[in-house]
C-alpha cells in the first residue's frame, strides 16, 4: 500500500491539473472569442418590461411575444410626439402564445393592478389601453398543452417552487432553472451565445467570409420552409382546436374588469414567407376568429399582417422578427393609421378616443 500511495497522490494531482487546465482553457478561449464576437446586450424580457410597468405610470400596455420588442420604437415615437405625456409599457413574452399572455395577465399583471388600485396612490390610474400583439401562430396550442416559455420568461421563484412541489422536476419547470443559470453567465460569449448561434457565424465569417453563411438555395429553402409551415398550420390539429382562442376570452374579461380598452394588433409577417394559400387559409381563419370575437366584445383590431409597409428587408435573418429600422417604419405607419389614438391619450381621460 505504501508503494501505491505516492502514485495515487500523483494521479489526484494530475486530475487537479487537468481540471485546472480545462477551466483555464475555457475562460481563455472565451476571452479570445469575445474579441471576435462580443456578447450581445441582454434583450428586453418580460421581467424588464414588468419592472418598468411597475415603476412607471403607463397609459397603455403592449403585451406580445418576442415580436412585442418591435413596439419599443412605437413607445419612443409616442413619447416623442406627446412630449413624454403618454407612456407605453412593453411586455415581450418570448415565444408567447395567447395562453401565455393569459397566464402573464392572471399571474403577474392582474395581481399587481389589484394591489395597486386598492392603494391610496395608485400608479396605474392612467392605464386605459391594452395592446395585444399577436399573429396566427399564437392561436396554435402547444404540443404538450402548456406554453413552454412561461417558466423561463415569466415565472418568479415562487411559481417555480410551487410547480416543483406539485409536478416534480419536469422539462417544463426545468427551463426556469436553465434560464436563471444562463443569466449568471451573460457576460461570457461561450454560454450566452448557446442556442443563438452568433458565435459560430462570426467564426465562419472570419474564416470563410460572410458569403457561405447563406447560399441562395438555403435562403430559398428557408422561405419554402416558412411557406409550408404557415400553409400546413391550417390542417394542424393544434391550430384548429381553438383552445388558444379561449385564452383570448379570458384576456377580454380581464380588460373589462380593469376598465381597459383592448386593441388586438396582428403583427406583420415577412411578405415572401406568405403564399396566397396561406393568406386565404391559416391567416384568414385566425383573423376571422378574432373579428367574430371583436364584434361580440367590442375590441379594436389593427391588422398589419400584410398591410403594413414592411418589406422583406425589414425583417431579420430569421424571417420572423422586425429589424430596428423596420420597427421605426412600423411605428410611423401604425401611428398614422390604426394606432393613432395613442397620441390622443395625453388629453384628459374623459376625452379619450372612443
Amino acid at each position, binding site marked *: 500500500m505504501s508503494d501505491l500511495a505516492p502514485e*495515487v497522490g500523483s*494521479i*489526484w*494531482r*494530475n*486530475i487537479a*491539473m*487537468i*481540471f*485546472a*487546465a*480545462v*477551466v*483555464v*482553457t*475555457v475562460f481563455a*478561449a*472565451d476571452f479570445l*472569442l469575445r474579441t471576435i464576437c462580443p456578447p450581445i446586450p441582454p434583450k428586453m424580457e418580460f421581467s424588464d418590461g414588468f419592472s418598468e410597468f411597475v415603476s412607471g405610470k403607463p397609459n397603455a400596455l403592449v403585451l406580445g411575444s418576442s415580436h412585442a420588442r418591435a413596439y419599443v420604437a412605437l413607445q419612443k415615437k409616442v413619447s416623442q410626439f406627446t412630449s413624454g405625456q403618454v407612456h407605453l409599457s412593453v411586455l415581450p413574452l418570448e415565444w408567447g402564445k395567447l395562453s401565455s399572455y393569459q397566464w402573464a395577465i392572471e399571474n403577474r399583471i392582474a395581481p399587481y393592478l389589484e394591489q395597486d388600485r386598492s392603494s391610496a396612490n395608485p400608479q396605474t390610474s392612467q392605464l386605459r389601453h391594452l395592446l395585444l400583439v399577436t399573429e396566427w401562430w399564437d392561436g396554435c396550442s402547444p404540443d404538450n398543452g402548456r406554453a413552454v416559455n412561461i417558466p423561463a420568461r415569466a415565472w418568479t421563484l415562487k411559481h417555480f417552487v410551487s410547480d416543483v412541489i406539485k*409536478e*416534480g*422536476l419536469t*422539462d417544463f419547470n*426545468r*427551463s426556469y*432553472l*436553465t434560464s436563471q*443559470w*444562463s443569466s449568471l453567465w451573460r457576460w461570457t460569449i*461561450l*454560454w450566452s*451565445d*448557446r*442556442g443563438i*448561434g452568433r*458565435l*459560430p*457565424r462570426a*467564426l*465562419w465569417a472570419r474564416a*470563410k467570409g460572410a*458569403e*457561405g*453563411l*447563406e*447560399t441562395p*438555395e*438555403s435562403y*430559398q*429553402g*428557408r422561405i*419554402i*420552409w416558412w411557406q*409550408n409551415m404557415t400553409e*400546413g398550420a391550417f390542417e394542424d390539429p393544434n391550430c384548429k382546436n381553438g383552445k388558444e382562442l379561449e385564452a383570448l376570452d379570458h384576456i377580454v374579461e380581464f380588460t373589462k374588469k380593469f376598465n381597459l380598452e383592448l386593441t388586438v394588433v396582428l403583427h406583420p409577417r415577412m411578405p415572401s414567407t406568405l403564399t396566397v394559400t396561406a393568406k386565404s387559409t391559416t391567416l384568414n381563419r385566425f383573423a376571422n376568429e378574432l373579428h367574430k370575437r371583436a364584434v361580440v366584445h367590442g375590441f379594436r383590431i389593427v391588422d398589419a399582417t400584410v398591410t403594413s409597409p414592411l418589406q422583406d428587408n425589414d425583417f431579420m435573418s430569421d424571417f420572423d422578427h422586425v429589424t430596428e429600422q423596420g420597427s421605426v417604419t412600423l411605428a410611423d405607419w401604425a401611428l398614422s393609421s390604426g394606432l393613432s389614438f395613442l397620441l390622443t391619450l395625453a388629453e384628459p381621460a374623459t376625452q379619450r378616443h372612443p
Partner: protein
Amino acid sequence: MNLGSIEFFVLFLPLGWLAYLLVPRTPRFQNAVLVVLSTIFYLSWTPSMAWIMALSISVNFVAALAMERLRTSPGKHRAVFWAAIVYNTGQLVFLKYAGFFAASLMELMGSDSTATRSSLHFILPIGISFWTLQLIAYQIDVARGRTAACRDFLVFSVFVLFFPQIPSGPIPRPHQLLPQLSKSRHVEPSWISKGAAALLMGYCLKFLVADGIASVVVQPAWADPAHHSALSAWVGLVGYAIQIFGDFAGYSLMAIGCGRFFGIELPQNFTVPFFSTTMADFWRRWHITLNSWLFDYLYGPLLTTRGFFRGRFDLGFVVVFGLSGLWHGASWPFVIWGFVHGLALAIHRRWDERLRRLCRTNRVWVTRRKSFAWKCAAWMLTQSFFVVSLVPFRAQNLDELRTFAAALLGFSQHGSAIYPSGLEWAMVIAALGVFATYNIGGTATGIRIWKTFLRLPAPVRGIGYGLVVVMLLILVPVGTGNFIYAQF
C-alpha cells in the same frame, strides 16, 4: 432531470459525489447515499409513479428470497418464480401496451379506437422497459441458481434504482452489478479520469453528433417527407441512423462515466456497430445489454426447451425480434421493424450455413469470403439494411412510414431539397468528425493514439479536454437534450 441537464451537472452530480466521498467507506453508507441520490433522480422524472418502482423493488426482493428458501419444494419454488415473472411482465404489458392492444383489437373489429387508446394510455414510470428486463433476469438467475438471492434491501434497491442506468440502461445483469454493490467502493483516481473521458465522449456523441445532425438534416427531412426529394430523404435517413446511434451510445457512455465516478462499472452497450459486416454481428455490437438479454433469456430457452419452437431457429429470430420491436414501442411500425430484423437474421443464418457448406466443398469460396471486395459488399449490405430498416423505427405511424418510403423512392409530391447553409454543413462535418473519432477509437490505431494522448503531461491533456468543452459550448444549444431511448 437527465444526464445532460444543467441541474445534473451543476448540482446533482457534484453534490452527490461529494456526499458519496464524505460518508464512511462501507457498503451500507455508500449504498444509502446511492439510494437517496437515485430516489431524488427518479422522483425528478415521474414522481406520481414512484410507488410502482417501490412496489417492484419490494416484490422482487421478497420473491427471490422466498424462491431460495423454497428450493427444496420444487412446486412452490416454481409457483413463486412464475408469480414474479407474471408480476413483472404483467406490469409492463398493462402500463405500456394495454392501450395499444385494445385499440388494435377494436380497429380489427372496425370500431373507433381513439377513446380506448386514450383511456388506457398511462404515464409510464421512467425506464420501466429497462428495469423490468433487469428484474426478470434477476428472478431467472436466482431460480436457476446462477445468482444468490440478494439479502440486503439497500443493495437490491441500488441494483434496480442506480440513477445513471434508470432512464435508458445499460441493463446490467445481477452478476455484473450485485457483487460490486455488496463491497465497499474505493473511488480510484484512475476511475475518475476514465469516467470523465466516457462522460465527455458520451456528451459529444449525444449533443454534438445526435442533436447536431438531427436539427440540420433529420428533422427537416422527416418533418414533411411529402415535400422532399429522394436525395433529401436519403440524407435524412442516413442522418437518423447516426443520430440514433449518437443518442443512445452517447447516453450509455454518459451512464458508464457517471457510474465510474461512484466506483461502479456498468456494462458496455455499444462496440463500434458500424464496423459490422453481418446483421448478427451488428446486434452483438448495438444495444448489447438488450440483445444479450433477448438471446439469453428468450431466444435460448425458447429454442432449447421442449415445445413448438424447439430447433426452429429462424422462427425464433422472427418472434424474438418482433418482441424486441414491441419492447421499443407500442405501435405497429416498431413491430414491423422488429419483424424485418428477425427475418434478416433468419435469412443470414441460412445463407451462412450454405456458405459454410460451399467453403467445405470448394476452397475458392474461402478465398472469396476473405477478400476485401467481399467484406466491402457485406459491410455495405449490412449497413444499408440497417439504415433502411430505420424507416419504420422512426415513423410515428403507418401513414408516415408510407409517405417517407415514397419519398425515398422519389415519389414525393414536390421533390424539393433540404438546403442547410454553409455553416450548418460545417456543424454537420464537426459532428461527423466526432462520430469518426468514436469509431476510430475502436480500432487498433485509435487505441494507440489514445494511449499516446494519455502519456502527455496533465496540463496538455487538460488543454485538449478544454478545447473539446469549448467546441461543445459553441455548437450545443443550451437546454437541449431529451434522449430518444428514454421514451421506450
